[in-house]
């Protein structure tokens, strides 16, 4: 599927650190839309093996801030023709997305989100309990009697996709256009020089030798703090594990995606019939992808509140990813105080859905050395300007 190359070249126009969906998408659009093909993607493991493979593949644009809604809406638009674009089936499947409200306070937030969404022509509406009962007859609307469902935010464009195929599609498309993808290649250091007006990138040291480059795009999710440390930058990013699990495959019965912020659960049924389930972040900082029994126990209990008929269904697999969280639940994207060092990070628990639009906007930013207008609200310096982009109200579950 990819060209294997024995050696790294001495120099590249752009080096992308991180061969996940985001890094490969940026490489793809750099080559396809900007004609920049002297590019190396460096991946310390294998492509798409990080958070691209560890999320629950939910795609939606029903966010809370104008910046977020416009950005994710563009991503949903790109998702719809990705399979044609790649000539590879990414199993993109529009399902409809219900965010359940169990309290008056969450109904109010749903209404707020629906109004912001409609203002930007995003299809969202608040629906009542009767409409939910009709759409999802298998669900216990009282949730075991302790968290009755009052209504929901319904978002018709909500979708899922096959995560591996996204990385492969972008990777193959980039590879075909001349981008070099180097797996098992770890970045050990980033070299900068002082230009008088601040530092700028001149090279990258890797486990397979040194590379000269004037532009580095860092798209490494859970490894972001370590990479920022290499160029002397600090950021608000902190790492917590995010766990998920799937059941054994079942005949198709659950069409929409169901999210309950109060019960800390989100679930959809994949093309293979497995129920893909997730919950909130692990409660403390940890740079590891271990799984815990606590998580399985809590998530299974909440799933049974919603769907008691699943009590005999078995859990097949569980896993974790390292989520790079930000205090305002919005990403950190664009230029940084280090010249030629571009950041696509702070993707926490919300990064998979943004893969296409991140590739689009970051390739633009790298090619022109100028942030794309869609990512202006996600700037690195927004914290020191006290201008946060508060997106926590649109996070799938209360973290």
């Amino acid at each position: 599927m990819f060209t294997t190359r024995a050696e790294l070249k001495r120099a590249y126009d752009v080096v992308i650190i991180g061969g996940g969906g985001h890094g490969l998408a940026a490489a793809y659009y750099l080559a396809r839309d900007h004609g920049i093909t002297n590019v190396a993607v460096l991946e310390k493991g294998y492509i798409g093996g990080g958070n691209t493979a560890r999320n629950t593949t939910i795609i939606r644009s029903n966010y809370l801030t104008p910046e977020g809604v416009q950005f994710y809406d563009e991503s949903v638009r790109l998702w719809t023709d990705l399979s044609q674009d790649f000539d590879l089936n990414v199993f993109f499947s529009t399902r409809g997305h219900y965010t359940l409200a169990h309290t008056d306070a969450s109904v109010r937030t749903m209404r707020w989100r629906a109004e912001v969404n409609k203002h930007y022509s995003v299809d969202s509406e608040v629906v009542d309990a009767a409409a939910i009962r009709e759409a999802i007859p298998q669900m216990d609307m009282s949730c075991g009697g302790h968290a009755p469902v009052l209504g929901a935010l319904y978002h018709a464009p909500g979708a899922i996709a096959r995560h591996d195929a996204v990385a492969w599609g972008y990777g193959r498309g980039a590879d075909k256009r001349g981008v070099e993808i180097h797996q098992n290649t770890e970045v050990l250091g980033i070299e900068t020089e002082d230009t008088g007006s601040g530092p700028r990138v001149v090279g990258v040291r890797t486990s397979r030798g040194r590379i000269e480059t004037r532009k580095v795009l860092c798209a490494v999710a859970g490894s972001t703090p370590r990479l920022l440390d290499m160029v002397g930058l600090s950021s608000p990013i902190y790492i917590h594990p995010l766990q998920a699990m799937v059941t054994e495959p079942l005949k198709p019965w659950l069409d929409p995606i169901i999210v309950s912020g109060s019960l800390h659960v989100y679930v959809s049924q994949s093309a293979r019939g497995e129920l893909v389930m997730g919950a909130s972040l692990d409660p403390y900082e940890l740079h590891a992808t271990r799984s815990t029994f606590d998580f399985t126990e809590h998530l299974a209990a909440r799933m049974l509140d919603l769907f008691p008929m699943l009590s005999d269904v078995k859990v097949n697999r569980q896993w974790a990813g390292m989520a790079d969280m930000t205090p305002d639940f919005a990403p950190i994207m664009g230029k940084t105080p280090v010249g030629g060092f571009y950041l696509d990070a702070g993707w926490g628990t919300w990064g998979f859905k943004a893969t296409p639009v991140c590739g689009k906007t970051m390739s633009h930013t790298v090619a022109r050395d100028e942030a794309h207008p869609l990512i202006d609200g996600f700037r690195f310096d927004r914290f020191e300007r006290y201008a946060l982009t508060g997106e926590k109200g649109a996070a799938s579950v209360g973290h």
Partner: protein
Amino acid sequence: MKIMTCPVNGPRPVSEFAYGGELREMPDPAAATDVEWAHYVFNRNGVSGLKVEWWCHTPSGVWFIAERDTKTDVVERTYLLGARS
């Protein structure tokens, strides 16, 4: 990590504890510039390694310090603030 040792109550299941973030020094609010204050409020040392952290034993409300490796999740020692032996 499944068991943590509270300096007052001894070894307890980790589900009894709440994480309070890294122990950090607050700059003088009257003297700090806006940028220094933003650095204190928002920025974190996100690199993995041995960290000095606040933890709370929630049933008894005891706040204490844990030295924990954030890569391996091994707690090296716990003690009350200022009582490191």
